[in-house]
C-alpha cells in the first residue's frame, strides 16, 4: 500500500478550479467545493473585521485618548457579534460541511445544491447588513442584545437584527443541507458507521444548526418587533429575552467545539495513518455531547445572575459536570489513535496541538464555572468572557487552521511550507496564551466581563495582554501569508500527501468538478 495510488477520477478531467472560471460562474455556482471556498473567504473576513473591532478596547486599556466610552461599547458589541454569530458557529460547518462532506461520503455534490448557494447568499447578506449598521448607526447594547437596552439604543438596531436573522437563516439552511446529504448522498454501501468522524461531527452539528438557526431567527424577529412597534413578547417582559438568548446561544456556542473536534480526529487519523480507535465510543460520546449541550445553558444564565432560584442553578451545574464523561471519551479516543501510529509531523499537527490545548482550557474552565461558589463569583467577570475568547481563537480558529493545513493540498492543489507553518503556529499559541492568561487573572481579580478598556485590575496585566495579542497576530499573519503564498509558489500536491485513509484523498488534488468518476468502493471509514 503506497501513498497516492488510488484515484478514481479520470486523469483528463480538469480540476474544479480550472473548470468553468470567471466571476459569473463563482456567483451562480452550485458546486459544493466552490461554495465551501467562498464560505472560507467570507467567514475569515468576518473574523478579521470582528478581531479588528476588538483592537479599540485594547487601545483604550493602554491609555488610548479620544476613545469615548460609547465608541468602546460599540466596538465591543460588534467584536462579539461578528466573532460568535458570523464566525464561531457557522465557520467550521459551512467551510468543511460544503467543501469536504460530499467528498468524504463519496458523493458528487451536496444533496440540495441550489440550497448551498442560498446558504452562502444569506450569510453574506447578513454580514453586509451588520457591517452597514456600523456606518449608519452602530449599536452599543453588548453582544447579548439585552432587551430593555436593545429597545432604547439609538443605533440601527433593526439592521443588526435583520443581519442576525439572515445569518441564522443561513445556519438553518446549511444544517438542512448537511442533514439531507448525510442521509441520501452516502456512496453505495456506506453505512452510518462507515462515515469518517468528521462527517459524523458535521451531521450532529446539523441538528444544532437546524434547531437553533430557526428558533434564533424567530426570537430576534420578535425582539426587533418589540423595538419597532412595541409589540411582541419582549415588550411585555424584557427579562424573557435573556432566558431565550442563553437557552439558544449557550448550546450553539459551546457545541462549536464539536466540528473542531471532528477536524482534529480527521487530522490525527490521517497523519497517523490509523483508523480512529474506539470509533463507536467516539460517535456515542459526540451524540451524548449534543444532548447535554442543550441542557447546560442554565449555568450561564445563572452566571449572569438573572435571579434564578438556587436549586435550579445547582441542577444545571450538576448536569453540565456530566459533560466530563463524553469529553474524556473523546480525548481518550484521540490519544489512543495517535498511539502506535505513523505520524507525519510538520503541517497540521501544530494547530491540532493548539486546538487541544485551548479546547482543554475551555473545558477545564467549565469546572470552575460549574463549581457553585466560585461560579457565582466568576459568572459575570472577565473570567467568563475569556472563556469565549479561548473558544473563538483557541478553539474555532485553531481547528480551522488545523483543517486548512490538512486539506489545503486538496482544496487548492498545492503544498505550503510546513516549516513556516510550524513557526507561525507556535508564535500564535504563545501569543494567544500571553494575551488571555492575564485576562483570566483580571477576571478573578473582579474586572467585569468584556471590560478590558476600563480596568482597575493589577498593573501591567493589560500591557502584557496587549503584547500577547501582538505576538499572536504576527504568528497568525505568518501562517495566513504562508498559505496565501503557496497558491502561486507552492509545489503541486499529490492526490494523497498524508497517506490518509478517507475517501476525499482518493480523488485528485484539487478534485475535478464531479469529484469521483465512479462511486468509490467502501471498506469502513478509514482504509489504508
Amino acid at each position: 500500500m503506497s501513498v497516492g495510488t488510488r484515484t478514481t477520477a479520470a486523469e483528463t478531467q480538469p480540476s474544479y478550479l480550472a473548470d468553468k472560471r470567471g466571476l459569473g460562474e463563482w456567483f451562480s455556482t452550485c458546486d459544493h467545493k466552490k461554495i465551501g471556498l467562498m464560505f472560507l473567504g467570507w467567514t475569515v473576513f468576518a473574523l478579521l473585521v470582528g478581531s479588528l473591532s476588538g483592537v479599540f478596547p485594547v487601545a483604550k486599556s493602554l491609555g488610548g485618548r479620544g476613545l469615548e466610552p460609547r465608541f468602546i461599547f460599540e466596538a465591543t458589541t460588534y467584536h462579539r457579534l461578528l466573532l460568535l454569530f458570523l464566525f464561531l458557529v457557522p465557520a467550521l460547518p459551512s467551510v468543511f460541511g460544503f467543501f469536504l462532506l460530499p467528498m468524504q461520503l463519496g458523493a458528487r455534490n451536496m444533496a440540495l445544491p441550489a440550497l448551498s448557494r442560498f446558504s452562502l447568499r444569506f450569510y453574506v447578506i447578513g454580514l453586509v447588513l451588520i457591517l452597514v449598521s456600523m456606518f449608519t448607526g452602530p449599536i452599543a447594547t453588548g453582544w447579548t442584545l439585552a432587551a430593555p437596552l436593545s429597545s432604547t439604543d439609538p443605533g440601527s438596531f433593526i439592521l443588526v437584527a435583520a443581519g442576525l436573522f439572515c445569518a441564522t437563516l443561513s445556519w438553518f439552511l446549511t444544517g438542512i443541507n448537511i442533514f439531507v446529504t448525510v442521509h441520501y448522498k452516502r456512496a453505495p454501501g456506506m453505512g452510518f458507521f462507515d462515515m469518517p468522524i468528521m462527517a459524523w461531527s458535521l451531521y450532529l452539528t446539523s441538528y444544532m444548526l437546524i434547531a437553533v438557526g430557526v428558533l434564533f431567527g424567530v426570537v430576534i424577529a420578535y425582539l426587533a418587533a418589540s423595538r419597532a412597534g412595541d409589540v411582541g413578547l419582549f415588550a411585555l417582559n424584557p427579562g424573557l429575552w435573556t432566558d431565550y438568548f442563553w437557552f439558544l446561544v449557550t448550546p450553539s456556542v459551546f457545541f462549536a467545539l464539536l466540528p473542531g473536534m471532528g477536524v482534529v480526529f480527521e487530522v490525527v487519523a490521517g497523519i497517523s495513518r490509523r483508523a480512529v480507535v474506539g470509533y463507536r465510543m467516539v460517535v456515542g460520546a459526540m451524540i451524548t455531547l449534543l444532548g447535554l449541550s442543550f441542557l447546560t445553558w442554565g449555568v450561564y444564565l445563572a452566571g449572569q445572575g438573572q435571579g434564578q432560584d438556587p436549586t435550579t442553578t445547582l441542577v444545571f451545574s450538576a448536569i453540565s459536570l456530566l459533560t466530563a464523561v463524553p469529553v474524556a471519551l473523546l480525548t481518550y479516543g484521540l490519544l489512543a489513535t495517535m498511539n502506535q501510529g505513523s505520524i507525519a509531523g510538520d503541517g497540521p499537527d501544530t494547530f491540532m496541538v493548539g486546538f487541544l490545548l485551548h479546547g482543554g482550557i475551555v473545558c477545564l474552565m467549565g469546572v470552575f464555572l460549574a463549581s457553585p461558589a466560585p461560579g457565582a463569583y466568576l459568572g459575570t467577570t472577565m473570567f467568563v468572557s475569556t472563556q469565549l475568547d479561548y473558544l473563538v481563537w483557541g478553539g474555532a480558529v485553531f481547528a480551522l487552521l488545523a483543517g486548512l493545513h490538512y486539506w489545503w493540498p486538496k482544496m487548492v492543489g498545492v503544498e505550503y511550507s510546513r516549516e513556516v507553518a510550524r513557526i507561525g503556529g507556535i508564535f500564535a499559541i504563545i501569543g494567544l496564551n500571553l494575551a488571555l492568561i492575564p485576562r483570566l487573572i483580571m477576571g478573578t481579580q473582579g474586572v467585569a466581563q468584556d471590560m478590558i478598556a476600563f480596568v482597575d485590575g493589577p498593573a501591567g496585566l493589560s500591557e502584557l495582554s496587549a503584547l500577547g495579542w501582538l505576538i499572536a497576530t504576527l504568528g497568525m499573519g505568518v501562517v495566513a501569508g504562508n498559505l496565501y503564498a503557496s497558491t502561486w509558489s507552492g509545489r503541486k500536491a499529490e492526490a494523497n500527501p498524508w497517506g490518509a485513509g478517507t475517501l476525499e484523498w482518493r480523488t485528485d488534488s484539487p478534485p475535478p468538478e464531479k469529484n469521483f468518476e465512479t462511486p468509490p468502493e467502501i471498506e469502513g471509514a478509514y482504509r489504508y
Partner: protein
Amino acid sequence: MTGSALLSTWFPEAASTHAASVDEPFYWIYFAAVCFLALFMGLVLIQLRVYRRQDRDQLGAVTGRPNPVFVTLWVAAAMGLALFGFITGLPGFINQTTPPWGAFEIDVTASQWAWEFTYPNGHVADTLHVPVGRPIRLNLGSTDVSHSLAVPALRVNKAAVPGREVQAWFEVTTPGTYALQSNTFSGDGFADMRSELVAHAPVDFGAWMEEVSDIFKGRTLVEVGELLYTRHGCAACHSVDGTKLVGPSFKDLYGYEFDTIEGARVLADDAYIRQSILEPNISVIAGYQPIMASFTGIIDDREIEAITAWFKTLSSKGGAAPDAQEEN
C-alpha cells in the same frame, strides 16, 4: 508586578467570611486542572514524537481497540475532577443562599448609572457603609435594566434585576474601603457605575450612623425640606413646577389664599402647612380629594419647619427664606 506574584495572586485580598469558600475551591480546582491539562498535553506531545513517521510509506498499527482499563481510569479521573469541583464549591454557595437572622438590612437600588443605598433609618447614600463583624443583608433591585452588584474583595456578586428582589449577604472581616461595581453591561454610562464599600469598625459605624441620622447636620433648612420631599415620596402627588397632580402643587402655595372643599377660605401659612401634614384631610383645597395619609409621628416639628422654609422658596409670596437671608 513580578512573575511570582502573577502566579500566586489570583484574587484580591480577602475581606469577608465568605471569601475563603470561593478561594479555596478555586485553588483546589486550579491545581487539579493544571495537572490534568499537563498530563493530557504531555501525552499528546510525547506520542507525536515517539510515533513520528520515519519514511514516507511507513504504516503503523492501522486499527486498534480502546483499552478498557485506561478508558475507565481516564473517565473516572475527569468525572472525579468535575465532581470534586462541584462538591468543594457547594458549601459556600448554600451558605450564600440564606441570609442569617438579625442581619443588618440595606436596600440597594441600581439604576442607569448610579447606586442608591437606603438604610433602615431612611438615610440614603451613594456609597455603601457597613459595620465589620456583623452580617449585612442587601435587598437588591433595579429601576430600569439589569445590573449587578459586585464587591471583589468580599467575593460578592449578585444580580439586580428590574421587577425582582434579589438578596445578597456578607460579613466583612477587615475595616477598609473596597471597590464596588456593576458587572452587567447597562448602556453608555456603564463604566461610571462604580462606588465604594466602606467597612467601619463597630464603634465607628455607630458614630457614622448617628452622624448621618441627623439630617440637619451640614444642611440648610431649605435643603432639609427638599430632602424630606424626596425621601417621603411626596413627589408622587405634589409637583414643584405648578403641574396639577393628585394633590396641589407646592409652587406658589405658601402665602396664597385658597377655597376649601367646604367652601371656606384659607391662607396657606405656617399653621395651615403644619395642619396639612399632620391632619391633612381637615381642610382640603377645592378641586382635590381628601385622601392624603397623615404624617403624624413620621415628620416631627423641626422637619415641618424645614419643609415650610423650603415652601417659601418655591412661592412668589414666600418672601426670602431665612437661610437665603443669612447668605445674602
